[in-house]
Each structure stands twice: as structure tokens, then as C-alpha cells.
């Protein structure tokens, strides 16, 4: 298997990546935007998850919470994704070797599969249980798993800055 390292070295040497890495303001602004968009995204997702597991807004139909929040959720995800990708490109070799970064990527994939599974299965039939204060077990489970994964993603993201194992 060819190593990914030459590609990462190429990324790191790009003129614009170097400019951001050495910038006075570009990097801090990008980093702040990354954190702020994650806060917005996770906050919105967690409101929906709490309704799913039955801990909040039990008397409100799920879709009345999910539908208006979904665009905000996707906007938060898009901004955190773009800024996250940029932060990676600015310092790819350090992230590549960082165990918490790898953990975060795996957790992101798992959280993505959970959300996809939820939307493709039980959420398709939401009309049948939309107003039930207690959602079906599969839906409650998806909500609980989502709360767990997104919390763990935030914690592992924070720990990337602590390079204990490098």
C-alpha cells in the first residue's frame, strides 16, 4: 500500500496552507469559527436527540422540532466541516500522527452511520409515531447513540491539542 505521507507533505508545503499556518489572524479566526460552528451544530442536534430519547419536549411532535432545526444543523455541519478540513490541510502531518485526531475521525464516521441509519429506516415512518411522547425503541436508541457520539467527538477534538502520545 502506498504511503499517504508524500501527499500530506505536498499539502503542508502549499503556499496558502503555509500562509495560514504562519498567519497572525487567519488561523485564530478559522479555529474560532470551527469551534463556534460545532457548538451550534451539536446544540441543535442535541435538542433533537433529547426529544428522541424522551427527555425534552415530549408533548411536541418530533417533526415540529426536527424540520425547522435541520437546515441550521446542516449549516453548522457544513461550516465546521470546511473549517475542519482547512485546519487539517494547514498542519496535516501533525494531525495524521495524533491519536485523538484518528479517534475523532472514527467517531465521526460512526455518528454519520447512526444518523444515516436513523433517517433511512425509522424516521421514514415518523408519521406513525410523530406525536408519541415516547418514540419507538430504535429511534430512542439512535438518539442516545447520537448524544454519546457527538459528546465523544467534542471531547476527542479538544484532546487533539494535547499531544501526550506524540
Amino acid at each position, binding site marked *: 500500500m502506498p504511503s499517504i505521507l508524500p501527499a500530506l507533505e505536498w499539502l503542508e508545503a502549499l503556499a496558502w496552507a503555509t500562509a*495560514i*499556518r*504562519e*498567519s*497572525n*489572524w487567519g*488561523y*485564530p479566526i478559522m*479555529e*474560532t469559527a470551527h*469551534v*463556534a460552528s*460545532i*457548538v451550534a451544530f*451539536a*446544540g441543535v442536534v*442535541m435538542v433533537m436527540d*433529547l426529544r428522541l430519547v424522551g*427527555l*425534552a419536549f415530549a408533548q411536541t411532535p418530533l417533526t415540529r422540532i426536527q424540520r425547522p432545526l435541520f437546515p441550521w444543523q446542516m449549516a453548522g455541519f457544513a461550516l465546521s466541516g470546511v473549517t475542519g478540513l482547512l485546519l487539517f490541510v*494547514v*498542519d496535516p502531518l501533525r494531525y495524521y500522527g495524533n491519536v485523538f485526531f484518528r479517534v475523532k475521525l472514527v467517531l465521526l464516521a460512526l455518528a454519520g452511520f447512526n444518523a444515516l441509519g436513523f433517517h433511512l429506516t425509522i424516521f421514514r415512518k415518523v408519521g406513525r409515531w410523530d406525536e408519541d411522547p415516547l418514540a419507538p425503541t430504535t429511534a430512542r436508541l439512535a438518539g442516545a447513540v447520537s*448524544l454519546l457520539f457527538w*459528546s465523544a467527538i*467534542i*471531547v476527542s*477534538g*479538544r484532546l487533539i*491539542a*494535547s*499531544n*501526550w502520545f506524540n
Partner: protein
Amino acid sequence: MKTKIIVALLTAGVLGAGQSALAHHPFAAEYDAEKPVTLTGTLSKMEWVNPHSWIYMDVKQPDGTVQKWTIESSGPGAMTRRGLKKTDFVAGMSLVVKGYAGRTKPAIANGRTLVLADGRSFYIGTVGGPNDGADKQ
């Protein structure tokens, strides 16, 4: 009520995680405030990078051998505000760095004060270091 408490805890957790993400490597996790060091030597390389810069220097030991030290210091923004420029760092120049050594890793330190060959002195510390007055000079 129970729900309110849970929501408040989750919110606090998310906000707390976000806020501290900007502090980067917490000083106490990697460096020891009980191990102050003063390093005199020559610059081998300077990485003027975010989130923190790295100064690599050769320090001559009393027995004549050279020890290679790595010093974590402020990022470009803070360095610039304190009057330093990327071009102030030229490989081979003499410098003195005061800071605190790592807890476990050898020859690594958290920089606090940088003294250039012309005598100019700069604070190069990062957030979370000990309150030693290095930032007040």
C-alpha cells in the same frame, strides 16, 4: 426540572469544551513549574507557526557535548504583538531562553522569556503558565 438540569449540564459541557479548545496544550499537562531552565545556545531552526511556535536550539553542555532543545512558545499573533518578527530568527544566531522543562520528555521546554544577542528581551509564554512575572517585563 430534571430535564432542565440535564440540558444545562450538556450545554455547559459543550461550551466548556469549545472555550478551552483555544488554550491548546495545557501547561501543567506537559511542563513542570518546579523545573525552571535557562538555556544559552544557538538557534538551529524556528517554526513560526500556529497554534504555537517552536524554537529549536543547540545548547552546549559543560562537558562540551551539544544538547538539542525544543521550546514551545507563543503563536505568530502573540509574537507579533510583542514586537517580534519571523525574520528576527536566523539559524545560527545566539539566544537565551528561560522557561520550564517538560515533565517527562527530555530536552523540551515551555518558553517564557527570550533574550536576543542585541540584549532585547521578549515574553514568549503561552496561556496557562505559572505566574512568574515573565509576562510583565
